[in-house]
C-alpha cells in the first residue's frame, strides 16, 4: 500500500509550509528591526557572566599581606609555601605597612611570621604564625582559615620530615585535564542566552499580535493554528540558534569553548538547536497566554534566570543539596547544560539520549501549550 500523501494532500501541506515560512519570515524581520531587543538578549546573560566571574574571583584569591619578621631560613620557606599555595594575592611587606593595608581594607588578612621562628625550630621548639583576619563573611574567612594551615602542612611535608606519624595523600584525577572555572561558566551562559532569546523573540512575536490586534487576521487565515504556531516557533528557533552559535563560536575563537573535532561540533550544534526549540516553544506559550509584552519580558528576566540558576548555571547541580537536585530534575535547562558540557569539554556522549529526549519533549509540550492558548482565543 502506498503510504505517500496524494497530490491534494501534498498541495495542502505545501500551502501550510509556505504559510509557516511567511509567518517566520515576518517575525524575523520584526525582530531584526528592534535592536534593543537584540541588545537585551545579550546583556542579560552578560550580567550573569559578570556574577560568575566576579563571584569566583571574590571567593578565589583573597588579598593578603605577609610580614616575615623572621630573618632565618624557616621564615623564607614558610613565606614561599604561602606564595606557592596559590590561594592568596600576596603583598610581602613591613608590619607598619601591613597594618595600614589592613585598616584601609586593602587586604583581608595579615599573616605574621614572628621573629625568631627559625631559631625556635632549630631548637625543636614550636612556633606560632599569627593571622589577623577581617572575618566579615564566612566564605572569605574560611578561605583564609583553610589556606594558611594548607601552606604550613605543604611546607612541612616538603621537608620530608622524620616523625612518629607518616601519612600522605595519593591523588588520582578522573579526567585528563582540568577546565578553568571561567571556561566552565561559559556554557551555562550560552544556555541562558538561548532561554532569554527564545522567550523574547518567540514570545514577543506572539504577544505583539495580540497587542496590535493583528491576531484576528492571522486566525482568519485558512491554515490551522498549529501552522501559525509552527511559523512563530521557527522564527524564535532560528534567531535563537544563530545567536547561540555566534556566542559558541566566539568562545571557540577565544579558546574557551572549543568542541573536540567535527563530532564535538555536531553534538554542540544539536544540543543548541534542541535547547532553542524548547526556549522558542516556551516563549510562544508565554506570549499566547499572557497576550502582552510585559509577561514575556518578565518571563525572559525572571523565569529564564530561575531556570538557569536551577540548572546549575552558577555551580554544578550534582554537587548541590539533594532537595535542589530533585527540583533541578524538572528543569529542561539542566539537560541542555549537561549535553553542552559533555559535547564541548569532555567529548562524551554520556546521557545524550536522555538529554535530547527531555528537551524535545519539553519543546513539544511548550508548543502544545501555545497552540491551546491560541485556540482558546479563537474559541472566544
Amino acid at each position: 500500500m502506498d503510504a505517500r500523501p496524494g497530490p491534494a494532500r501534498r498541495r495542502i501541506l505545501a500551502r501550510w509550509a509556505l504559510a509557516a515560512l511567511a509567518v517566520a519570515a515576518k517575525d524575523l524581520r520584526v525582530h531584526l528591526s528592534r535592536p534593543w531587543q537584540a541588545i537585551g538578549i545579550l546583556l542579560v546573560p552578560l550580567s550573569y557572566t559578570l556574577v560568575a566571574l566576579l563571584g569566583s574571583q571574590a571567593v578565589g584569591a583573597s588579598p593578603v599581606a605577609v610580614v616575615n619578621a623572621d630573618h632565618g631560613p624557616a621564615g623564607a620557606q614558610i613565606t614561599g609555601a604561602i606564595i606557592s599555595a596559590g590561594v592568596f594575592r600576596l603583598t610581602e611587606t613591613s608590619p607598619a605597612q601591613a597594618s595600614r593595608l589592613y585598616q584601609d581594607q586593602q587586604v583581608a588578612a595579615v599573616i605574621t611570621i614572628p621573629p625568631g621562628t627559625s631559631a625556635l625550630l632549630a631548637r625543636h621548639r614550636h612556633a606560632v604564625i599569627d593571622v589577623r583576619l577581617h572575618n566579615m563573611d564566612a566564605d572569605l574567612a574560611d578561605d583564609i582559615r583553610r589556606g594558611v594551615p594548607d601552606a604550613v602542612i605543604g611546607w612541612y611535608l616538603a621537608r620530608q620530615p622524620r616523625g612518629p606519624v607518616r601519612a600522605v595523600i595519593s591523588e588520582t584525577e578522573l579526567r585528563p585535564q582540568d577546565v578553568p572555572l571561567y571556561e566552565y561558566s561559559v556554557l551555562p551562559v550560552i544556555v541562558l542566552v538561548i532561554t532569554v532569546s527564545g522567550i523574547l523573540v518567540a514570545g514577543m512575536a506572539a504577544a505583539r499580535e495580540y497587542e496590535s490586534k493583528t491576531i484576528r487576521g492571522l486566525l482568519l487565515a485558512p491554515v490551522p493554528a498549529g501552522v501559525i504556531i509552527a511559523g512563530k516557533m521557527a522564527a524564535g528557533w532560528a534567531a535563537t540558534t544563530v545567536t547561540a552559535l555566534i556566542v559558541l563560536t566566539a568562545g571557540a575563537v577565544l579558546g574557551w569553548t572549543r568542541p573536540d573535532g567535527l563530532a564535538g561540533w555536531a553534538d554542540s550544534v544539536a544540543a543548541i538547536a534542541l535547547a532553542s526549540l524548547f526556549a522558542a516553544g516556551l516563549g510562544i506559550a508565554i506570549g499566547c497566554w499572557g497576550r502582552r509584552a510585559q509577561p514575556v519580558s518578565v518571563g525572559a528576566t525572571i523565569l529564564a534566570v530561575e531556570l538557569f540558576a536551577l540548572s546549575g548555571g552558577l555551580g554544578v547541580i550534582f554537587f548541590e543539596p539533594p532537595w535542589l537536585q530533585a527540583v533541578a530534575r524538572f528543569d529542561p535547562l539542566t539537560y541542555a547544560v549537561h549535553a553542552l558540557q559533555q559535547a564541548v569539554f569532555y567529548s562524551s556522549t554520556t546521557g545524550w539520549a536522555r538529554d535530547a529526549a527531555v528537551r524535545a519533549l519539553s519543546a513539544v509540550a511548550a508548543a502544545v501549550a501555545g497552540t491551546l492558548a491560541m485556540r482558546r482565543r479563537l474559541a472566544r
Partner: protein
Amino acid sequence: MNGRALRAVWAVAAKDARVALTERMSLLQALTLPLNYLIMMSLFALAGGHDPAALVMADHGSYARQFASSMAGARTFSITDASAQEAAARIRAGNLVAAVTIPPGFDTDIRDHQAATVRVVVNNLNQDLTDDAERGMRLALDQFYQSAAPGQVPVSVSFQDQYPGGDTGYISFLSMSVVVISVLVAGLLSAGNAAAREYEERTMRGLLLAPVRLRHILVGRILGSFLISLPSVAIVMAVVALLAGDRPQHPVAAAGTALLTLAGSCAAGAALGALARDRSVVAVITRALPVPLFFLTGVFAPLSYFPPAVQWMGGLLPVHYAVVLTQWGFRGLMTGTVPLAADAAILTAAFAAFAAAGAVALRWTARIRPARRRAVSRGR
C-alpha cells in the same frame, strides 16, 4: 513651594501611583526581580559550599577514625560513608567531588612508623573544584597530624578575628546587597515606567500643557514612584531580615540608606523614562545596565579586594556607597574605604545629580514643542 505647587506635585504623584497599581505585571516584576537575585545569590553561595565526598573506610582503627574526623573538620567536604563499589559508582555518575579511601592496614602502618597512604579520586570537572578538594585533603592531613601526633608539625597558626561576634554567613552577607538592588530596580522600573507611559499613551502633551512648572511634575513623579515602590522594598527587607537572618544593628542607618537610594533610583528612573519613552526599552535598560554594574560594587566582598580596574569602576557608581552603608547598617561591617559620612554625602549628591538629569530630560522633552508651550504661556 506654595500650596498650588504642592497640590500639583501631589496630583501627579497620586495619579502615577493609581496608574501603577493597575499594572499588576509591573508590580510583580518590581517585587520578584530582587527576590530573584536573592534566590540566585543563595544558589551561588550554596554552590560554593561543601563539596560532596564519599569516604571508604577499609580500616576502622583509631587512626583511621581520627583521619575521618579530620576530614569532617576540614570545612570543605560534605561526607557520606560508602563502600568501595558505591563510591566508584557515584563518582562515575558525577555525584561526588572526591572519593577518599582509607586503606586496610592504615593503623598498622602508622603504628609501625611506615608511610600510610590515603587514596583520593578527584572528579576534576573544573579547576576550582579540584583545587578545593586538594586543599581540603591537605587540611585534613594537617588536622590529622595535630590530633595523632601533637607537636610533630612544629608550626601552628593562631587566628585573631576582626569581628569577635563571629563570621557573617555568606548568604546573609550577599542578602544585604539584595536590599540595595531591590531598591535600585524598584525605583528605576516604577519611575521609568511612569514617565515612559506618558509618551506611549500620548498623555504627556496634556501634562505639558498643564499650568504647572516642569519641576513640580518631576517632583510629583519621583514622589509617586517612591511611594509605590515602598511596599516592595519593605517586603524584600523583611524577607532578608527574617529568612537570611540579617537583623539591622543600626536600623536608622539601614532604613535611611534604603530610602535615600530609592529616592535616587526614582530620580534616575524618571530621567530614563523621559529619554526612552518606551516601557520595554526602560525594562531592557534597567536589567541590562544597572544590574550588571551592581555586581561591580562590592556585593561579593569589599570592593578594595578586587583588581584596580574593578575598584575604579565600582568607585564611580553611587550604588557602591549604598552597599557599604547597608552592610554597616545591617551588620556593623566596615567594607568601604572612606568614612561613612562621606558615603552618605556621595549618595545624597547622586540623588541631586539624578534629579537634575530628570529635570533636564523633561525640559528637553518640553522644548520639542515650543509653539505649544508659548501658546500656554500667552494664555496664562
